[in-house]
C-alpha cells in the first residue's frame, strides 16, 4: 500500500546509483497504474446502481422482466414519468420535500449560528454546564422515541402536518457544536470588540461580523441539513398520513409497495427523488467532503 511513498522516501534517505533509481521509478509507475485500476473498480461498484436506476427508468416493464436484461437506455422514460404522475402526486411531493428541507435548513442555520456564536465568543454564567448538557444530548438515540414522539404530535394536532417534520429539527446539537469551532477559529476578537465599542449589540455583531466570517461552516451545515431532511424516511413515514401531503421518500415507498410490478414507473419516480440531491451535492462536494472528514476527526 505504501509502496509509492516508500520509493520516494528511500530515494531521499538512501541515495544509491542511477540504475536503482530507474528501477524504483519504473516500479512506482507500475504501482500507480495498479492503484488506478483498483480505484476504478471500486468507483464502478459505487456508480453502478445509479446507472442501473437510469437504465431501468427508460424501459417498460415487459423489457425489464425479459431475458437477457437490458444494459443500455431505452425510450420509455416519458411514458414512465407520465404513469408516476397519474399514480401519486409526485411533483406535489417534490415541492413538499423541497419546502420542508429548505425550511429545516434555514432554521438550523439561523438558530445554530446564533447559539454557536454565543458559546464560541462569550463567557456567561452556567455556560460550561449548558454546553456539557448540549453534548450529552448527542447520546440520546432517535429511534428510542418514535412512539412517544408520535403520541406527542397527535396531542399537538400535528399528525399529517409538516410542522411535525420542521419544528423538532429547527435547532440541533451537532450544528451548534460544529459552528462553535468555526466561531472560535475564524472570528477575530478585535473585530467583535471594535464593533462593540462602536455601540453594536450582540445581535448586530452576530449578523454583520459572525455570520460573514462563519459562512463556510454555515453553508456546509445548510447543505448537510437539507440532504438529511430530504432523505429522512422513518419519521415522515410515521407522521404523514394524508396521501395528498407526503414527502418524496414516503410517496416513493408507497408507489413501490402498491405498484411493485410496474418497475419502469417506480424507477422513474426514484430518478426524480435522487437527481436533484445529487446536483446539490456535486455543486458543494469539495467543501462538503472536507467538512465531513474534519468533523469526524474532531469528534
Amino acid at each position, binding site marked *: 500500500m*505504501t509502496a*509509492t*511513498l*516508500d520509493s520516494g*522516501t528511500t530515494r*531521499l534517505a538512501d541515495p544509491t546509483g542511477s540504475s536503482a533509481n530507474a528501477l524504483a521509478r519504473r516500479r512506482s509507475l507500475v504501482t*500507480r497504474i495498479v*492503484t488506478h485500476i*483498483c480505484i476504478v473498480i471500486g*468507483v464502478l461498484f*459505487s*456508480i453502478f*446502481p*445509479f446507472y*442501473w436506476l437510469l437504465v431501468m427508468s427508460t424501459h417498460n416493464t415487459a423489457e*425489464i422482466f*425479459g*431475458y437477457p*436484461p437490458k444494459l443500455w437506455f431505452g425510450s420509455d422514460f416519458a411514458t414512465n414519468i407520465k404513469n408516476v404522475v397519474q399514480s401519486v402526486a409526485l411533483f406535489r411531493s417534490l415541492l413538499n420535500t423541497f419546502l420542508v428541507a429548505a425550511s429545516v435548513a434555514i432554521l438550523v442555520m439561523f438558530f445554530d449560528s446564533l447559539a454557536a456564536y*454565543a*458559546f464560541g465568543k*462569550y*463567557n*456567561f*454564567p452556567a455556560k*460550561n454546564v*449548558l454546553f456539557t*448538557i*448540549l453534548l450529552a*444530548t448527542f447520546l*440520546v*438515540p*432517535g*429511534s*428510542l422515541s*418514535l*412512539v412517544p*414522539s*408520535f403520541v*406527542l404530535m397527535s396531542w399537538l394536532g400535528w399528525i399529517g402536518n409538516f410542522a411535525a417534520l420542521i419544528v*423538532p429539527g429547527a*435547532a*440541533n*446539537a451537532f450544528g*451548534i457544536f460544529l459552528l462553535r469551532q468555526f466561531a472560535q477559529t475564524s472570528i477575530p*476578537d478585535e473585530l467583535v470588540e471594535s464593533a462593540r465599542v462602536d455601540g453594536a449589540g450582540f*445581535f448586530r455583531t452576530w449578523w454583520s461580523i459572525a455570520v460573514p466570517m462563519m459562512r463556510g461552516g454555515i453553508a456546509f451545515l445548510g447543505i448537510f441539513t437539507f440532504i438529511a431532511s430530504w*432523505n429522512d424516511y*422513518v419519521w415522515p413515514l410515521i407522521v404523514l398520513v394524508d396521501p395528498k401531503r407526503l414527502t418524496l421518500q414516503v410517496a416513493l*415507498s408507497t408507489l413501490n409497495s402498491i405498484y411493485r410490478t410496474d418497475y419502469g414507473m417506480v*424507477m422513474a419516480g*426514484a430518478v426524480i*427523488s435522487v437527481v436533484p*440531491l*445529487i446536483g446539490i*451535492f456535486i455543486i458543494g462536494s469539495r467543501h462538503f*467532503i472536507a467538512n465531513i*472528514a474534519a468533523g*469526524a*476527526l474532531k469528534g
Partner: protein
Amino acid sequence: MTITNPAVTPATVTQPATTGRKRPNPIKRFWPQYVSIAPFYVLFLVFGLFPLVFSIWLSFNDWDGMGSMNFVGLAQYRFLITDPRFWNAVGNTFIIWFISTIPMLFLALVIAFLLHQNIRFKGFYRVAFFLPNVTSMVAMAIVFGSVFSDSFGVINSALQALGAAQIPWLSSPWGIKVTIACMVIWRWTGYNSIIYLAGLQAISTELYESARVDGANGWNIFSRITVPMLRPVILFTVITSTIGGLSLFTEPQVLLGDSGGPGEAGMTIVLYQYNQAFTQFDFGYGSAIAWALFIIAVIFAIINWRLVSEREVGGQKVFKVRRQRKEVAE
C-alpha cells in the same frame, strides 16, 4: 470541550464572568446570549427529553393509542423476553451488522490507502465514492431489489449466463441478509474511506521519515505507525457503524415490507418496533422494544469503551517507543 473556553475568549470581548457574577442579575446582562441558545434547549425539552421519559411510562402500559391506557407493570418486558420474533430480530440485526461492517471497514481502509497515494483525479474519485452516502436509501433499496431480484435481477441473469445456479436472494434467509448487507456496504464504504483518508493525511510525514532513518521497512511502518495513529479514527468508524447497524430500518422495510420478508429473515429490531407500534398499534410493546434496543446499545457502548481504554494503553506504548526512537535518531 469546556477547557478551551477561557483561553480562547479574551477578557476584552467577554466582560469577565467574575464581574457578571458580582452584579445582581447576570441574566439581564447576558440576555442576548441566553436568548440565542434557548431555542435548542426548549426544543430538546419538548421533543427530546419528554418523549424519552414518556416512553418509559408507555412501556409499562398496554395501549393501542386510542382507548384508555392499562398499567401492566413489567408484563411487556416479560413478554419480550420470551418473544421468539423479537429474538429473531435481534439475531438478524447482529448478523447483518457483522457481515456488513467487517467488509465495509476493510474496503474503506484499502480505498483510503489507495487514495492517499499521490495520484491524479483524486477529487473525482472522492466524489464518486461519497455519492452513495448522500443518496436516498428508499430509491436505492428499490434499485437493489431489482438488481438482486430472484427472477429477473441482473445478478441472477449473469449467474445464468455463466451456467451457475441462481441464488434466491430475496426469498432465502441468507440471501436476504446478504442483500441488505450489500446495501449497507455500498452506502457507507465511501463515507468511512473519506474519514480514514483524512486520518491518514493527518499523520505527519516526519514520522515516516524518522522511521525510515531508523531503518524500518514498509510493513513495520504500516503496523507501528499507520495503524496506531489511525486507531482513534478506526474506533470512531466502528462506533458510528455500530449505531447505524443497530438502527437499521429503511433498507429492509423498503426491500421486504413491514414484516421483514419470508420467515421474517430481514426483520431488524427497529423494523420490529415499527411493526408492533404502527401496524399492530401496540404502543406499549413498541416502547418496550425501544428500551430493549437501548439496553443492547449501552452494552455495546461499554464493550467499545473497554476496547478504547485497552487500546489507549497500547497506543501510549507505541508512542513512547517512537519517542525513544526519535531521541536516538537525534
